[in-house]
């Protein structure tokens, strides 16, 4: 008999294709979430949407690769925003007051991997310094400390200090992945592991067990998360999105555990759609000309090793700068972009002197 599995489904592509999208944030950006993030519309392809839903259904991490600026990082935000909107809608249908529901955002954490980062940092850090300090304070002598901390009264702070010292868990600080994995009461938390290729090559291998079993153990305390809660049923498995710019190749055991999706640079039509979806009141003619031009630039740059062709976000930034002037002036700026006097504009899309020189050589009039 067919068994219905109740799991969230990402509708990003279908939603933005609707005449009036249901779950996309406004073009000007959403209200900030509790972590201060503001969400903007996101336009996935059908293929990407399907890959996300596969990762959700199979409870596997989704590894996204693609050139910088193609929207890898924004995908996790888009999923979190859509699921929040759906959640709010569900609450509304259940008759819960908006004021209560508005407080609730879908659980979403980001882990920005650093080049010197260790895999354990994303799970937890153990504040050994604080523990040492507490030990020193306790070692200073009880009577003296009671006077110092509690003004000689109840002795509560001193008691807290002693209790804290005895309980190692008090010195734990959970990282993004750790937070997501230890959740037992929220539905499918989302965690983004951003730019995993920045870290040491051992880094992905150090996460194999955690990504496989979706649990982790704190060595210092011996505790395993998520804590088993008898009678609570299956614990929610996080939706893990991992991005990589492919600065270094990832080990095979790690790749095997992930679903993989390569984000290609959008073609002209899609790029125009993305821009119109992100920028208000912008001339179609200007969008078309700018997109056409930068696709040509990308064509030239693709044969030059080491160059960084403009990505979607750079083209969006460029149009954001141009859109406040008249279309004629904007087009003129585009035409004269190779001139030294327009260096400030060129710097919006091409970030190195070498790339700018290459542009001037290829597109300058003289």
């Amino acid at each position: 008999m067919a068994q219905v599995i109740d799991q969230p489904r990402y509708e990003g592509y279908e939603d933005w294709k609707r005449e009036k999208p249901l779950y996309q944030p406004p073009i000007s950006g959403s209200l900030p979430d509790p972590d201060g993030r503001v969400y903007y519309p996101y336009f996935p392809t059908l293929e990407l949407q399907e890959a996300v839903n596969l990762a959700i259904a199979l409870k596997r991490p989704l590894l996204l690769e693609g050139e910088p600026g193609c929207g890898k990082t924004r995908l996790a935000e888009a999923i979190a925003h859509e699921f929040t909107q759906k959640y709010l809608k569900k609450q509304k249908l259940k008759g819960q007051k908006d004021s209560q529901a508005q407080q609730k955002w879908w659980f979403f954490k980001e882990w920005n991997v650093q080049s010197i980062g260790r895999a354990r940092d994303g799970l937890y850090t153990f504040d050994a310094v604080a523990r040492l300090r507490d030990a020193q304070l306790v070692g200073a002598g009880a009577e003296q400390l009671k006077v110092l901390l509690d003004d000689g009264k109840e002795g509560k702070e001193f008691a807290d200090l002693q209790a804290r010292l005895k309980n190692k868990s008090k010195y734990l600080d959970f990282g993004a992945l750790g937070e997501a994995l230890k959740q037992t009461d929220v539905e499918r938390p989302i965690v983004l592991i951003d730019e995993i290729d920045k870290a040491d090559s051992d880094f992905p291998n150090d996460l194999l067990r955690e990504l496989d079993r979706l649990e982790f153990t704190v060595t210092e305390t011996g505790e395993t998360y998520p804590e088993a809660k008898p009678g609570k049923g299956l614990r929610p498995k996080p939706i893990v999105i991992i991005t990589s710019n492919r600065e270094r190749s990832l080990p095979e055991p790690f790749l095997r555990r992930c679903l993989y999706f390569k984000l290609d640079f959008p073609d002209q039509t899609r790029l125009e759609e993305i821009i119109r979806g992100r920028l208000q009141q912008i001339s179609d003619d200007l969008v078309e000309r700018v997109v056409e031009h930068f696709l040509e630039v990308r064509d030239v740059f693709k044969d030059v090793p080491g160059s960084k062709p403009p990505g979607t976000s750079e083209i969006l930034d460029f149009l954001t700068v141009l859109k406040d002037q008249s279309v004629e002036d904007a087009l003129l700026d585009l035409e004269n972009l190779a001139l030294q006097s327009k260096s400030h504009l060129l710097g919006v899309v091409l970030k190195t002197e070498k790339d700018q020189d290459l542009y001037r050589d290829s597109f300058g009039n003289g």
Partner: protein
Amino acid sequence: MIDLQLPLLHLFQRLRQKGMKLTIEQYELLRQSMDQGFGLDWESLERVCRVLWVKPSLNYDETIFQREFADFRRVHQEKFQQYWSKQELQAKPGQQVKLGMLPTLPPRRWEQKNDEPQVVPESRSPSDRRHEEDGLGAIAPPDLGKPPKKDLQFEPWDVPISLEMVLQTWKRLRFPLIDYQREELDWEGTIECINREGIFSDLVMRPLVRKEADLLLLVDEGSGMVPYSPVWQPWVQAVEEQRISSAQTYYFSCGVDDALYDWYEPLQAVPLGSVLMRLHQKRSIVVVLSDGGAATRSDDDEKIKSMQQLLQQLGRAAREIIWLNPVPVSLWENTSAATIARWMGWSQEINGVMLPFELRQWWEIIPVSSLRANSIASRALSFGQKWEKGYGH
């Protein structure tokens, strides 16, 4: 009709035959996806298979996938179309249609005796056999086996080393070393000391324990090593697949000049100096895979000299050198291999040893978990009693 229990097994097996290292677990993922309503037309099915099976690695190559999927589609176009039109009415994403059995890969043929006939399991039903013909369900075992064994033919499985053994070895090679010259704070010890002696107690320090190692793999590609190429394949594979992190493979031929070679395309000489620059005296372990002239029975003074020079330079820059010789130790005598092995044994300039592959437990000389102060090479020397002629001395 299509058997949902083993959908696309034929494609899965073809991809494995063509070099994609797909696992049963990855097949199971496809089955689960289809159970949940993904892949209900050719385009969607291709997308699903691609997301599950293609990765940025040569072992999960997109080109192989594309070609094989296109072939599969061409052959089975109609049958799947009929199947989907029926299924579309029944299944939607998010609904599990039916749980199937986990497929089991047929046993690898090299585990059987060569003269044993291939037996088709009797448990296969007529419908299974029909699916085999259709390419839809259970299908004939993939041709994973090795060709009939010929005399004097070496295969990776003939030599006493496998990828797993390489990884085990590496794990052992990079176990923690105590660095007595550097210290770190012993938190637990300090806290205990403060609790015991009060706030004015000293910090407790302990020697730094490091578990860092880089591998420099040097593979001899001289003519003597040709029959032994399966010996080094697991090592090269481990490096290529990033199973050993921070590792680099270079090739050389006996009679080394001032360069090593990156392989194959483009064949590029890398100055020895730039390789040495990347080595670290406390971290780098050099593994040399070479017959040292034993395979061709050569005893060339020039080659010995050049190898000694190379080893000296490596020895100065790296932690230790392990030379693995695939030729049986009894055949080393009167060849360059014997001279180099003896020299490595007594030389004060390098911390290294030549070990024969035939010594199947050679890697057991490396302790598993205890911290060590002495090197693998010096342990090998004491262990070296086990092989004759005193090569370790």
